[in-house]
């Protein structure tokens, strides 16, 4: 089992390299180059200077080599505009996105799995068809449309929750790790937690609800299938308590496809996080990237894209490893 995990982890650097390569080359299919855009009003001399300072006078392969070297040292260059290093900007925004992603996963799993189990348990009743209709509705809903709807409902009409930002401007917060929960414990700032949660609810609901639809479908299918298996009937015949049949026999076997779909949905979830950050002006990596795109701030776009892609790969690897724990049959492979 340890060997299997090691094997899976050994793949990580290769996937990371492939992903980094794609990010590098996709962002360099730009017609013309970044200097043309930056130096629209500059004289020829100034433009050459810009080109040189950005390292754009070297060949693409040289640039690629430098990019990889910088990448190993976590040096992603610095913003064309603010001059801040990209690593610093990512350090500011990545924790925010991770918080949002975790909160969204919680929403997605809670809602998706509960509705899925309910639909399976009350198969072919109105609960089943109702939950399936809702599931289709929510995963049909584009992230931003749901975001707007939630803003209208909870922000504008009911005035229950704030609709943009991460913390109210009146709160004095000096980030240390920039994970609010950790900082709250480290610095005794428990007053931060409640406003933070209030701001987090709507974005997390937006991302969680839109991705929960798939989880509902898969959960329902997995439970319906497992419940009709012979070993479940055998367990019942042995006089096992219903609760034990559910947790030890049905739930454990049905959880495998659910873990798969949660892992797979994480990509959609990160995409949703990018969009929701824009909708709710939530200061994460996604918003950083989208703003950088409009400013044609390529080092920032590149860094942000890399970080999001790596987060995704990491989660997929963890998903693969968690199979081994859930299904002993796979350990022999």
């Amino acid at each position, binding site marked *: 089992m340890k060997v299997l995990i090691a094997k899976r982890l050994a793949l990580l650097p290769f996937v990371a390299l492939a992903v980094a390569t794609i990010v590098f080359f996709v962002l360099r299919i730009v017609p013309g180059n970044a200097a043309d855009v930056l130096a629209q009003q500059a004289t020829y001399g100034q433009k050459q200077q810009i080109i040189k300072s950005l390292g754009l006078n070297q060949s693409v392969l040289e640039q690629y080599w430098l990019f990889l070297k910088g990448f190993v040292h976590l040096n992603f260059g610095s913003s064309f505009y603010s001059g801040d290093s990209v690593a610093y900007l990512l350090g500011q925004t990545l924790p925010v996105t991770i918080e949002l992603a975790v909160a969204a996963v919680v929403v997605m799993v809670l809602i998706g799995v509960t509705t899925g189990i309910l639909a399976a348990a009350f198969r072919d009743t109105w609960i089943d068809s109702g939950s399936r209709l809702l599931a289709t509705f929510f995963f*049909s809903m584009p992230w931003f*449309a749901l975001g707007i709807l939630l*803003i209208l409902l909870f922000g504008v009409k009911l005035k229950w929750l704030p609709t943009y930002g991460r913390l109210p401007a009146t709160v004095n917060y000096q980030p240390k790790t920039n994970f609010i929960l950790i900082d709250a414990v480290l610095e005794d700032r428990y007053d931060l937690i409640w406003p933070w949660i209030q701001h987090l609810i709507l974005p997390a609901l937006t991302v969680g609800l839109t991705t929960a639809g798939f989880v509902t479908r898969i959960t329902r299918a997995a439970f319906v299938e497992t419940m009709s298996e012979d070993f479940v009937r055998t367990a019942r015949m042995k006089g096992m308590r219903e609760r034990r049949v559910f947790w030890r026999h049905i739930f454990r076997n049905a959880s495998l496809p659910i873990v798969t779909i949660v892992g797979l949905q994480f990509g959609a979830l990160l995409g949703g996080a990018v969009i929701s950050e824009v909708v709710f002006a939530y200061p994460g990596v996604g918003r950083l990237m989208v703003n950088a795109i409009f400013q044609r701030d390529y080092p920032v776009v590149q860094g942000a894209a890399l970080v999001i892609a790596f987060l995704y790969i990491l989660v997929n690897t963890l998903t693969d490893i968690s199979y081994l724990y859930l299904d002993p049959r796979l350990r022999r492979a």
Partner: protein
Amino acid sequence: MVFGLVAIFAPLLAPYGPTATVGSPLMKMGAHGHLLGTDSFGRDELSRVIYGARPLIATSLLAVVVAVVLGFAIGLVAGYFGRFVDTALMRAMDVILSFPLILLAIMIVAALGTGLLNLVVAIGVSQLPVCARLARALAARERPREYVLAARTSGFGVVRVLFREIAPNLLGPIVVQATAIVAVAAGYAAALSYLGLGIQPPTADWGYMVKEGQEFIFAAPRLALIPGILITLFVMACNFAGDDLRDLLVGDRGI
């Protein structure tokens, strides 16, 4: 269907041009014959809503064509030749899949610039691996069949065997897959447009209209709400159409 018809006949249905200023800004619903009122520039909202369907539908359909045609070709070649070609092509697809797909689409648009065609390419490429994987599995299944062998021994060229003999047998599943992708593509197209990476203003486009409307969400919530709901309905319609078509062709309920 209804969405398609509305989009095609937009010029006939819409009472005003989509970019024409016809009244004062932010007029209420029904005021002066503007059923849905006017937007922040005093343009007729109903007309913009009707015209706004066009970019979304065009982008999503074209993107699906790109994804299906290219993905199908790649998968067919990979599945038919197997071995080295298969490994190389499918690893390439795996690398694309190791991205959150919307991120890939955003990156491509960021690099190529905005505009309908670039949007189509971005969304098409991001859906490519899905089609390629399916086509590969199907092609690998067909390869050992007798009719393929017969065609090969008859001395037909590779291209003919692939596209005239095998391809027609795979159309059913591919069409089902394509309808499933339309919904995803529409979602992406709307999202990119919302981010401001789609068709540029002043052209009416649902995604961007939501964005514009968001600024006036307190004064005139309908400006963001109406296009938002329409996008949702469109994607839902695509999903249901896809499901129905699958049931019709495959004949089982699945998941």
